[in-house]
Structure formats: C-alpha cells, structure tokens
C-alpha cells in the first residue's frame, strides 16, 4: 500500500490517532535502509519526536542493498544508529534474523516509553545460496527451476526460526 520513503509518516498518523483517542496498542513500521535515503523519512523522524510517539516502533531492515548496488556505495548512512539517535529515538541494533532478539528488542522499545527504532541487520535472500546478498534479486522473481532449488535449500538447511 505504501510507497518507499512514505511509511513512517503514515505510521505516525496512526500513532497520533491512537494517542488522541487514548487507545492502547502499538503501530509497527518497517522500512528498508535504501528507501530511507528519501528526505520524507527524516521529516517523519522529526514528527515522531515532536509528538513523542512512544506507540510507534520503527524497524529498519538493514541489508545494505538497493537497486543500483550497496547502500554504502550509493549514499552511505555512515553511522546509522547514531544518526537515528540524534533525532531523539531510543535506538537498538540487532540481528534481524533472530526472532529472539526481535522479541527482546520490542519489549525494550515498549519499556523505553519514547519513540524508538530497531535497526535489524539482515542478509537479503538469506538461506538461498544463489540469492544471498545478491543485488540482482532486489526486484526479480524466480522461474520454476530456481523456485525448486530455493525450496530445496531452505528445507535442507532447516532454516532456523527461533
């Protein structure tokens, strides 16, 4: 539904609506580390801070890939955690492939009672040998043969979801 760079603004609006109606619950927003090159994202970080939106939890899927190559080559974030922190967000960095770490980070974010961000380090295409960290797979679909191979690898590796 949401186009790149625009998600956090919408999540903030939903968080604001909850806040003004005294509704409980959290709004989760997932963005990629490429799309946050868009300026609107930083406008939204300021909005999140202005309205103290502690009911919005922002995830950044940091896989360091965007269409033209590596994020660090196209427009590096340098120290992403420090940058997000400077907008007044409680910021954690975790292994995005660990459900356990995700769960713990969400709990800590809720306890922080302030706008928060979880930077999830991930490997794009994880668990499939020919896809892992390959920028070519950013926006491509599998043919029948590739699909069979991918499913076989995921089953063989008994890809861990803890």
């Amino acid at each position: 539904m949401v186009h790149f760079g625009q998600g956090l603004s919408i999540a903030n609006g939903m968080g604001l609506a909850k806040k003004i109606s005294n509704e409980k619950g959290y709004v989760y927003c997932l963005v990629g580390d490429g799309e946050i090159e868009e300026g609107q994202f930083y406008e939204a970080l300021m909005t999140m801070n202005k309205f103290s939106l502690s009911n919005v939890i922002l995830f950044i899927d940091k896989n360091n890939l965007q269409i033209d190559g590596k994020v660090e080559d196209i427009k590096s974030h340098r120290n992403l955690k420090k940058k997000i922190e400077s907008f007044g967000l409680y910021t954690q960095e975790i292994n995005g492939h660990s459900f356990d770490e995700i769960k713990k980070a969400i709990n800590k974010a809720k306890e922080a009672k302030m706008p928060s961000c979880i930077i999830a380090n991930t490997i794009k295409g994880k668990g499939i040998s020919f896809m892992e960290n390959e920028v070519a797979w950013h926006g491509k679909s599998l043919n029948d043969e590739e699909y069979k191979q991918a499913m076989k690898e995921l089953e063989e590796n008994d890809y861990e979801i803890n």
Partner: protein
Amino acid sequence: MKSTRKAYGEFLVEEGKKDNDIMVFDADLAMATCTNMFKNEYPNRHFDIGISEQDMIGTACGMALSGKKVFASTFAIFMAGRAYEQIRNTAAYSHVNINLCATHAGIAVGEDGPTHQCIEDIALMNVIPTMKVLCPADDISTKKILKFCLNESGPKYIRLGRSEVPTIYNDESNFKLGGSNVFGTGTDGTIFAVGNTVGIALEAKEELAKQGKDFRVVDLYSIKPVDRNTIVNCAKETDILVSIEDHSIIGGIGSIVSNVLCEEYPKKLIKIGIEDRFGKSGNYKELYKLFGFTKEHIMENFNN
C-alpha cells in the same frame, strides 16, 4: 467580501464544535491557510507538522486511515506540487478519506510571486485516478462544498484562494458533487468560470446585458467529476463559448470543457487563462488586469 480560505477556517470551527473526530493538519502556514482559527478553538485536534508537506500528507493519511475526519492544508503549490507523489500514491491509491484544502491558488496570491502562485494544480490533481477536484467561488459555496465533502469517501482536493471575493450565493444555493451552477438563461454566449473568476464573469455578464447581449455564466465548482450535461447544453443553446480561470490554460477548466465538447458536441471555445508562462509578483488586482482576468477582457473576446 470574504476570502474562501477564511470561509474554510470558519467552517472548521463550526464543524469542529459538533464533531470531535475532525482533525486538522498544517505545515507552518496555519495563519495564512486560516486553520489557525480551528487551532485557537481546538488546539488538541490541530497538528502543525512544520515545513514538511510530504510528511504532513502521510501523517494526515495515517490519521484518516484510523477513522478520523481529516483536513490538511498548505498553499496549493506545496500541496499539489511538492507533495504530488504522496497525494497520488498514499492518499489516492489507498482511497484515503481525506480533504486536501489548498489555499493561495493561482496568481491571485499576488506579491509572493511565481514560486508561490500555483497555476497547475487543477491539471495535476485532475489527472490522479479517483481524485475529486472542487473549487468554490465564494464564502457560502466554500462551506456548502466542504460540507458535502465530509460525506464523500476518498481523496478530495479543494482549491481555495487568498484574496477576498464577492459573495454571489445565498443560503438556498445548492451544490453537489458533479454539479455546476448556471446564472441566467441567455443564448448569446456562455462564460465558464471557476473560483475567483466566477465573480468577474458575472460582472462581464452584466456589462454585456447593457449592450443588449444576453449571456449566461456557469460556475464549474465541481471540476472533477465535471457537469458534462450542462457543458453540452450550453454548447447547444448558446452561440459563443468562453472559459476563464486563474490557472494555466493547459489542463485547466478550459481544457476540461474542450475535452467534453470534443467528445460530445464539437464547438469552438475561447480560453482565457494563463498562457504557457509563469505568473508575476505584484498586486493581485493589477496582475488580474495584466493577465486579462477582467470583465473588459472577456468583453473584448465577445466583441471580436
């Protein structure tokens, strides 16, 4: 005399009193857009997002998706211009119930000059799938149009002005989506107008009457959907057709009327509007003279 933006501010206060779900967004222009009138009464339901229009549209859409009745405002240039893709992809594609009330449209902005004079917003908004586009001509129609917008689903763009305009309607006047209002039954010619230019067209109609020419004026306040039947009937019933708008002639109401005529009843249309050029900085009345938005200029076209 009252500006449509002021009528908008009054509408927000009146409706905000009755309905706690009305939420208003602005982007550091609350004084100018008149949303500060609402802010003064209901500060908890007014959100100033700062100078970040793209974020304002997104945040306002998030609020609307949560079931609130949302109005978002800034100048037309920063709404239809800067936040175009946010309006298209976030508001329209997701069919968000939102009222985008853009003020300071057209060269009537005056002294702020071409960077602030949006002369393309009708074209930009009209082309977005499912977007409804409305432009009131006075204070009464502003309130009546906003009122029916509250009950219309989906995204709506409401074009409002900075300058004071004469009141031409009364409490009995009716407005509906896809409607128009026709002044007079004259068969010598039709003047299609919208927003600020409706008052000017009515002045021209009076002047022409003094010369024994009976014209009608059509207020095309519902730009999309547009009142096709009225356009076609006017083409059938009157000799000369003219459109006048404080907007580019490329993609404005002149183009919209032309499209309808071309499809249903081909006939020549004289378009008065801003040619393929930018506005200028200056007093609004002087600019209107310079760009030909006067009764005299309309009459020249008829007389030629």
